[in-house]
């Protein structure tokens, strides 16, 4: 297992490298002059040259890239052009918010999706099954922001409930924190749950068709044992892969939900960076999010290699 883990980590390196190159290249392609953005169009050439030198923008691209990437590896993501504050500390503190949102949403979606998916598979073609399928279809079709707005509308008009504003860290005031996070996390979780629900249902159905389920029943197992001990364990493998990919959708969806609920997360930081043309910030944020996503996928890969005895470690 250890060798397998090491190998998978090594396989990541070209991907991480490629991501950083892509981000850097894209950032360089953005039209619009950083310098003009800061100094205005009337700046004198000398002033421009000075600023360019300060930010190292006059050097060849490869040098700029290496400079940046070496800095990143040392934990230095550079400074914001707007605020001159170092970027990484802010990313990390904001990441706590996004991470909490994402994790809560993920847990909520699993708690909804997996039981309902199993139910639909087991009670195939009954009312429960059809209900779950419709619910899943809606889940897949309703975008997070549309759901947020409609829900806020309904809650405010019908129940006079307005989502609390402002943010409080979990460790400062857990209750208040949960109050603030529950609605955005629930919305995000529900909008993801559709596809996990469908995958669970089809995966469990597929497994229930397998021969070994017949054997288990022939041994005298109850349906509950057949499903939870045998079917679910086998069905979990494609589900885990899907969940890994879902984290990406969650991270993306978090960007929007943070905007709607004014949560000080990484998504909001990225958007602000784009709107303000604060390129180092955008660069750092996107890199960080991509890295996190890649890491999460690595973890899910390792997880199902651990669960499935058929995967060989050499």
């Amino acid at each position, binding site marked *: 297992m250890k060798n397998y883990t090491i190998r998978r980590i090594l396989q990541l390196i070209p991907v991480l490298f490629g991501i950083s190159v892509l981000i850097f290249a894209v950032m360089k392609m953005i039209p619009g002059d950083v310098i003009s953005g800061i100094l205005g169009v009337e700046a004198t050439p000398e002033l421009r040259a000075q600023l360019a030198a300060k930010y190292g923008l006059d050097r060849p691209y490869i040098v700029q890239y290496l400079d940046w990437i070496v800095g990143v590896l040392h934990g230095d993501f550079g400074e914001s052009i707007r605020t001159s504050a170092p970027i990484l500390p802010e990313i990390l503190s904001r990441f706590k918010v996004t991470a909490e949102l994402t994790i809560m949403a993920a847990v909520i979606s699993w708690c909804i999706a997996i039981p309902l998916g199993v139910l639909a598979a087991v009670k195939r073609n009954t009312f429960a099954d059809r209900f779950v399928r419709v619910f899943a279809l809606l889940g897949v079709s309703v975008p997070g922001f549309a759901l947020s707005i409609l829900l806020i509308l309904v809650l405010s008009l019908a129940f006079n409930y307005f989502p609390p504003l402002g943010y409080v860290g979990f460790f400062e005031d857990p209750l208040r924190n949960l109050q603030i996070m529950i609605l955005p996390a629930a919305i995000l979780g529900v909008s993801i749950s559709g596809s996990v629900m469908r995958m669970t249902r089809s995966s469990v159905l597929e497994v229930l068709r397998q*021969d070994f389920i017949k*054997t288990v029943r022939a041994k005298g197992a109850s349906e509950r044992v057949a499903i939870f001990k045998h079917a679910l364990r086998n069905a979990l493998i494609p589900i885990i892969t899907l969940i890994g990919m879902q984290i990406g959708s969650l991270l993306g969806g978090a960007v929007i939900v943070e905007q709607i609920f004014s949560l000080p997360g990484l998504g909001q930081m990225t958007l602000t960076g784009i709107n303000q043309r604060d390129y180092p910030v955008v660069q750092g944020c996107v890199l960080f999010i991509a890295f996190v996503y890649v890491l999460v996928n690595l973890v899910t890969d390792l997880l199902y290699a651990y669960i499935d005895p058929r995967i060989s470690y050499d």
Partner: protein
Amino acid sequence: MDHLLEIRNLSIELPQGRRKPPVKLVEGVDLTVRKKQNFGVVGESGCGKSITCSSIMGLLSFPLSLGQGSSIRFQQGDGREVEITGLSKAELRKLRGRDISMIFQEPMTALDPMYTIEEQICESLLFHASLSKAEMHDAALEMLRKVKIPRPEQILKDYPHHLSGGMLQRVMIAIALINNPRLLIADEPTTALDVTIQAQILDLMNELRESYDTSVIMITHDLGVIAETCEEVAVFYAGQVVEQSDVNTIFHAPAHPYTAGLLRSVLSLGGAQQELYTIQGTVPTAGNFSVGCRFADRCEHCMDICRNRAPALSEISPGHLCRCWLHADTPKEETA
């Protein structure tokens, strides 16, 4: 009753939606299995032999169901008779794996890839006996030795994908016999195996028969397997039993034209004939069975009555049943 298993008038239906009546895949099947008997069920693919035997344990897969009037009487270990069709789900579960066991055709996919061999053998014990972990381990080990698996200690710790088809089938037999069942249903257990392995497995089963008190229902399409292992044989065609007798009679003096045809097809492989014998025509599909004998349009000896009236399964000589107008007394009134 002094028989182990008595199936009477078994029929299995497949629903066709709300507007059409269900199709009977199997109809009017009568089978009697005695204690410690090797009973063969032979027929082509799709003739209904597998689902008939699955229904003995109540393991019909959705949406199939037993037709009205089906009766399956079974004598349990303690001597009590039960009507299987009337049992609750919980009672059926007690029967499965303990009084009646089943092994299947594809050993490579018959076991859960997520659990070790030991866990899966002990699961049978878990459902039906209360033993300590150490006792279960010893019992599993002992079973593996009985099915002649080399290095059983190591095999217990392995996962199914580490084992070959032959080994897996031995494990399946071990699982099936560990609780000393009265009846073992073997659904084409050697079809998916190499010929040499096939012979080994059949030999193993024959040997085990000596030490166990178990009757075996051997389902197969392979007459060779029947010849090697069975005492009594029932021949299935198009969802019905068309002939039943002891193995010698079936092989040397078959009464039903279908059985005779089957034998001729097999024997022609070894003989010095020019052509392979085949039974002309094809098996009718369920729902398209004729009103008369289902074999009529393929039969060399077909008579008028065969097309119009379905023959019943009757005893044409002691211990020999046949469903054919050639041997049954034709009814007095006839329509040509």
